[in-house]
């Protein structure tokens, strides 16, 4: 395994107005974090609001500049602004389905703008690429002509994933990408991300406050608290034998649902005499 993303001793500070209207002072959003994410793994970043997990994502993608420390992508130390190939290398899916898409642009225009800018495809290839992207994220091709307001939250998040994939990245960051979705839409988007990671060999960085979602999706995870990484481990290990008191507290706070309930043995859907009204449209629906 090679290291895809290497963050070393990253500090991010931003000025805030001082107390009682005093001089601006610096507040540390990230307080010296070191994280090495391997190629092709799915890595979870968990913590509560204000712990710095979104800032970490912004550092990786280049929206925030560290005041010290180094960021390496694919072995290359990056600087801001990044050269286009590196910018293309890492893409992000944002949290809020309501604001993740430009309300005035049709899905087709959003995707085409990015594809053409990065010379990923043009002319007749372009049409094929657009269709391919829709297929990848499990949306019917006519969604290409939709405006964001015509789409449900889950569909918008799929479009946002297609947009991230349009420039053929190697790393996909999902920043609370399923938090705003209903349970049933959430499960489908999680499955989609897992499939894309396998099919395209992506490195997936999954940021969430929801530990159960990270548990379902990630190989390894880091727990963040107050701008620091306090524990990194295989997800199984992190959940079964957390080393830090804070991690244990976080785990205890999850409403005990998964551990106590036994999912009942569902009657087999491929049952003998059960005529099924609907064909299996799992892959292309949500």
């Amino acid at each position, binding site marked *: 395994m090679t290291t895809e993303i290497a963050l070393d001793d990253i500090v991010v500070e931003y000025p805030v107005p001082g107390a009682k209207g005093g001089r601006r002072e610096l507040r540390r959003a990230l307080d010296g974090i070191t994280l090495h994410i391997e190629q092709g793994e799915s890595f979870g970043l968990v913590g509560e609001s204000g712990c710095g997990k979104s800032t970490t994502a912004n550092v990786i993608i280049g*929206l925030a500049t560290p005041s010290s420390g180094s960021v390496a992508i694919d072995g290359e130390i990056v600087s801001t602004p990044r050269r286009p190939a590196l910018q293309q290398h890492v893409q992000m899916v944002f949290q809020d389905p309501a604001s993740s898409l430009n309300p005035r642009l049709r899905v087709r225009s959003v995707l085409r703008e990015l594809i053409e*800018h990065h010379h990923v495809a043009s002319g007749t290839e372009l049409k094929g690429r657009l269709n391919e992207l829709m297929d990848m994220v499990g949306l019917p091709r006519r969604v290409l002509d939709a405006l964001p307001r015509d*789409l449900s939250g889950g569909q918008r998040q799929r479009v946002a994933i297609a947009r991230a994939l349009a420039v053929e990245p190697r790393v996909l960051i999902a920043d609370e990408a399923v938090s705003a979705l209903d349970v049933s839409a959430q499960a489908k988007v999680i499955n989609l991300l897992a499939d894309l990671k396998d099919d395209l060999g992506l490195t997936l960085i999954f940021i969430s406050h929801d530990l159960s979602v990270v548990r379902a999706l990630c190989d390894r995870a880091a727990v963040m608290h107050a701008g620091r990484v306090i524990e990194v481990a295989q997800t199984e290990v992190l959940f079964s034998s957390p080393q830090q008191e804070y991690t244990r507290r976080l785990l205890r706070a999850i409403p005990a649902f998964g551990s106590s309930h036994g999912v009942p043995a569902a009657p087999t859907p491929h049952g003998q005499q059960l005529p099924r009204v609907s064909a299996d449209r799992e892959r292309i629906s949500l």
Partner: protein
Amino acid sequence: MIDVSTASPAPATAAATDGVPRSGLKRGTGKLIVGSTIVTVFVLAALFAPWITLGDPQAQDLANRLAAPSAQHWLGTDSLGRDVWTRLVFAAQVDLRVGILGAVIPAILGTLIGIAAGFGNRVVDSSIMRFSDVIVAFPLFIFFLALVGLVGPGEGFWFLGPGELPIIIGFALISWVVYARLMRTEVRRVRSLDYVRAAETGGLPRRRVIVGHVLPNAMNQTFVYVFVDIGLAIVAVSTLAFLGVGIPLDTPEWGAMISSARGYINTNWWLIVAPGAAIATLAVGLALIGDGLDDRLKQS
């Protein structure tokens, strides 16, 4: 929602385009229809003024002063025997011209300044904002009017009548502040939205992000406000003319007409009511368009 199942059991679902189906028209449609009908009537009247009136708003008939409305003079005549209907319609030219320029010029100016502040760094932004504070704090408009009062309305300029240019300049100097603040706030809001961040991280050039993703979504409130502002400018112009500032009193202009008819309110009340109603109706029409646009924008 767009229906995404291949085998849709209920065809009704496929036809739906939205979460909650709406009964009837989009919100704001009524206001937009009424507002734009009113404004269109005024604009058409102004454009075709020579054909729907007696022709010359200054033609005097001293033998026939202060006549009551008749088949010849629909709204009677004023104290100099001039046809009031003709003056009323020609006044629409003056008021619409000054009102539109007095709102649109500051809107363009302020929007550009607001964009600079919204995208600029901290120094650019705070310089612009402090300068706009100074403009608001300093009684610039009164100062300007005093100056106009001293030097007089002057000649007309290009297609503008006497006194119109100073008034428009006066509006431009003051009202840009509102547009600049509005635009700055909107630019900052839209810039922080996820789709703009996605365009940035997608590697699109800065100019494309600004022109393609930020500005189109930051302009909405400006469009809403400019309609309301045209109405406000018209009310302001006629108020000034009423007070004898800016546009000369003998110009066919609603405020000036009211001012010169002041002495005849007991006998010839329509001399005041007609221009007053014109101002009010047009301002309401413009406000309705602004309001309707706002409803429409909030909905989507």
